[in-house]
């Protein structure tokens, strides 16, 4: 079947071709992802866990027309699966599934921006930390000298996906992902601050800069101020804004809105596209070519949902505005739902940018212009309380600072908040220039974000959290 070569020695591209060749279905899409990652984790100025992992996953989606419409079956395996068995399992799944609601003809036109099909996959290894680890060791020593503890995590991964289809697509995309989080604490854990960054290759990561940010915020935390629950003028830094906007982005499903079951549903029917959500000229957008946040320029979908369809594998994922100058302009809409609603098909890209193109200040200037307010660091444990308003709850974490007359004058206790990101867009009165940031809550799933600082005059701190 495969020229006598063991599957383990086949290249990813050969594996895609072998699966396509073994198909007895009406159509097939197969993709192979080669993944390599390395990580270091530390606590109290010492290593806790580490690892170097490699894997290969193979996803075969078979399409079978049983007479009543096209059905799809998706099967994924890691490692070195038997091609004949894998393809047969996928076809069996398709035959057992029944006609798919999201059936549309498969994509046949290659999207722009795909990589070199014939080239080897990208790699990474623990050596990516060859300079980072000693620098971190030095930061541990300096923290120890100050009587402080450092905690955190660094990870680098490389994924190369080769996607082939029976309609002739041969697409490749490389996705480097990296993140570093540095958390500083006093020995009694009473003071706690955070700094973090995303990166593609660790060459732009400065441990010294992260450690200096932690040291600065530990200094801000020397004076403790207790404040009660209530509504406060609040400066949400880019990381906190990103975690709220990512949740909003994950909720932007057109079908849910059209069916009346999310915050973007219009009373009386339909969706809220065209509604003004923000008074500020805020634009929420995704762009696979955004510098430093590059993401796959085409769609890769293992299983259908309301926001993505296996039939759309290989579909171009161009730059798109979700909110333009404060007005809701697009929701995530697979091709099948787009046909049903006679609305444009849209694709969720794996990055998110919020910007006020008229902004002229940076976050430091916003702090300096604050008479009295709270400056947050990150948000944590964000969960949906009410889908109707998209009310979210969560905690402030690792630094709530009191700003008085333009200066940070102390560290405040943490709070539980109850807020809707949709309402916050409407109530924000100022945005800074946009910068790359690392989401704190969602960085296991989403690292590619660029956000401004937002000023909200009346952020709802629902209760005090004694946690630090």
């Amino acid at each position: 079947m495969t020229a006598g070569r063991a599957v383990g020695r086949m290249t990813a591209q050969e594996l895609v071709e072998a699966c396509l060749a073994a198909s007895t279905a009406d159509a097939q899409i197969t993709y192979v992802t080669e993944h390599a990652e390395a990580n270091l984790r530390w606590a109290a100025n010492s290593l806790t866990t580490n690892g170097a992992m490699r894997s290969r996953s193979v996803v075969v989606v078979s399409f079978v027309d049983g007479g009543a419409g096209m059905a799809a079956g998706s099967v994924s395996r890691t490692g070195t699966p038997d091609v004949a068995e894998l393809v047969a399992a996928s076809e069996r799944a398709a035959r057992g599934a029944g006609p798919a609601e999201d059936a549309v003809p498969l994509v046949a036109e290659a999207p722009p921006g795909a990589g070199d099909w014939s080239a080897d996959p990208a790699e990474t290894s623990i050596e990516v930390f060859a300079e980072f680890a000693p620098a971190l060791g030095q930061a541990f020593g300096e923290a120890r000298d100050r009587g402080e503890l450092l905690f955190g995590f660094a990870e680098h991964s490389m994924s190369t996906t080769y996607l082939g289809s029976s309609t002739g697509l041969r697409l490749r995309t490389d996705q480097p992902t990296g993140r570093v989080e540095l958390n500083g604490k006093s020995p009694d854990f009473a003071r706690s601050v955070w700094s973090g960054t995303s990166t593609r290759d660790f060459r732009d990561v400065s441990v010294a800069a992260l450690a200096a940010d932690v040291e600065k915020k530990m200094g801000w935390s020397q004076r403790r101020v207790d404040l009660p629950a209530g509504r406060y003028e609040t400066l949400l830094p880019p990381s906190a804004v990103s975690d709220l906007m990512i949740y909003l982005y994950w909720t932007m499903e057109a079908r849910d809105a059209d069916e009346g079951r999310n915050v973007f549903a219009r009373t009386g029917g339909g969706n809220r596209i065209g509604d003004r959500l923000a008074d500020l000229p805020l634009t929420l957008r995704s762009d696979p070519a955004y510098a430093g946040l590059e993401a796959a320029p085409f769609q890769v979908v293992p299983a259908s949902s309301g926001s993505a369809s296996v039939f759309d594998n290989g579909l171009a994922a161009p730059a798109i505005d979700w909110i333009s100058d404060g007005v809701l302009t697009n929701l995530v809409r697979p091709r099948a739902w787009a046909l049903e609603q006679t609305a444009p098909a849209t694709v969720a890209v794996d990055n998110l940018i919020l910007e006020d193109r008229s902004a002229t200040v940076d976050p430091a200037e916003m702090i300096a212009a604050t008479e009295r307010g709270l400056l947050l660091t990150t948000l944590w444990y964000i969960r949906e309380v009410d889908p109707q308003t998209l009310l979210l709850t969560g905690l402030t974490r690792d630094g709530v600072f009191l700003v008085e007359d333009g200066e940070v004058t102390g560290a405040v206790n943490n709070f539980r908040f109850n807020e809707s990101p949709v309402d916050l867009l409407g109530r924000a009165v100022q945005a800074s220039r946009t910068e790359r940031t690392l989401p704190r809550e969602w960085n296991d799933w989403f690292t590619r974000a660029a956000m401004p600082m937002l000023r909200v005059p009346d952020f709802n701190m629902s209760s005090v959290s004694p946690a630090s």
Partner: protein
Amino acid sequence: MLQARSVDESFLALPLSALTDAALTRAVDLGCEHADIRVERIRTQTISLRDARPEAVTDGEDLGLAVRVVHEGTWGFAAGVVLTAAEAVRLAEEAVVVAKVSAAINTDRVELAPEPVHADATYVSDYEVDPFDVPDVDKTGLLAEFSERLLAADGVEHVRASCMHVKEQKYYADTAGTRTRQQRVRIHPDLTALTVDRATGSFESMRTLAPPAGRGWEYLTGGSWDWAGELAEIPELLREKTKAPSVEAGRYDLVIDPSNLWLTIHESIGHATELDRALGYEAAYAGTSFATPDQLGTLQYGSPLLQITGDRTAPHGLSTVGWDDEGVAGQEWDIVSDGVLVGYQVDRNMARLRGLPRSNGCAFADSPGHVPVQRMANVSLRPAPDGPSTEEIIGGVERGIYVVGDKSWSIDMQRYNFQFTGQRFYRIEDGTLAGQLRDVAYQATTTDFWGSMSVVGGPQTYVLGGAFNCGKAQPGQAAPVSHGCPTARFDQVSVLNTVQEAGR
């Protein structure tokens, strides 16, 4: 114990011994003081339907191996997916390289608490029908039929149905001589009915209370859960909920059903008594714990009625195993006795750090590609041996709320301040239920909340709840865990109105 089932031949036929010999020999040659190898195959299928029509069927299998070493007092870990002796050797070598690079930032010498050798041991969890032996059409067909029953009712506009089932096969071997083979099956069926009022733009949903369980496909067809009864009552309950008055914020006596209380136990006791959190290993991510080791034996966690155990042995428990991912046998122990903190969940390195004679077996890795870390046992609230029924507990409340089913949850990084919502809330007036309420959330601080527990229900109210997706560690790992509890009463808990919280 009757073991009706065995580990699948196709897993045992993998070259487990050859991989073990290759990896462990190489690790010892390279000077490691400890080495272990895991080979895992995890099969996962998720079937989802939207309005009784198939949305997706995914079928995944994750097969791989991992070598973990202690080299000169430092951990090293490497994982791959090619099951050959050459790859096992390469992983042993790579794990040692990882240990050497990491030595630059390691100051704490790794040592493991001793564990008896389990030389040739096999465990299969307690299930009847392997979900992967049931044809997809039958599984999808049953979920479609369940969906149709809900859709047929007045007022139900949409139904989502899903079922996720997992078969986890693990082989573990270490340089001490332990060799274990395990097979566990678990299942999580879930249906949600939704009603939409287009005129007002409002919508409301209600989900089944059936918890995920360490069972097979018989969970959907046998007698362990009353599917017919639950599906029959949801439309009317949903209709009642949409017409219910919005709650008046304030303090109420809460009677909390096991279908809601399991999650409060998980968040405020399960995580708070993980020793790695209390020691700060999770400080930058999952968080720490207010229940620090210096308070062991003295911290008043709750009222004297509070009896909490940890176990990896409960029948059908999602965290139940034969041996953990460091070769430690599953055990049961006390975490809170008469309201006082008396125990933690640990792994072998932490047991050694604390001077304990033995680990209580809480090491777990969610996949062959991830390193084992301390994960949660089944952490459960013991019922009162002659305790009251749920009706009797409600009967003793003058003005309160009966809370049923879990929904939204959030707790801070030290496990103090939490907020939960639910599927249904009933007003209690003079000891009887007086209709549903909407927009309810309860908020409290952990020790205040458990300190306010005034009545614990009897064994007849006990239900084992749980989740597949407990998150912890970086890189992130998802672990399945169960929590058993009776119905219980909590006095004067703060209740919020979520519409007011949204500023409406």
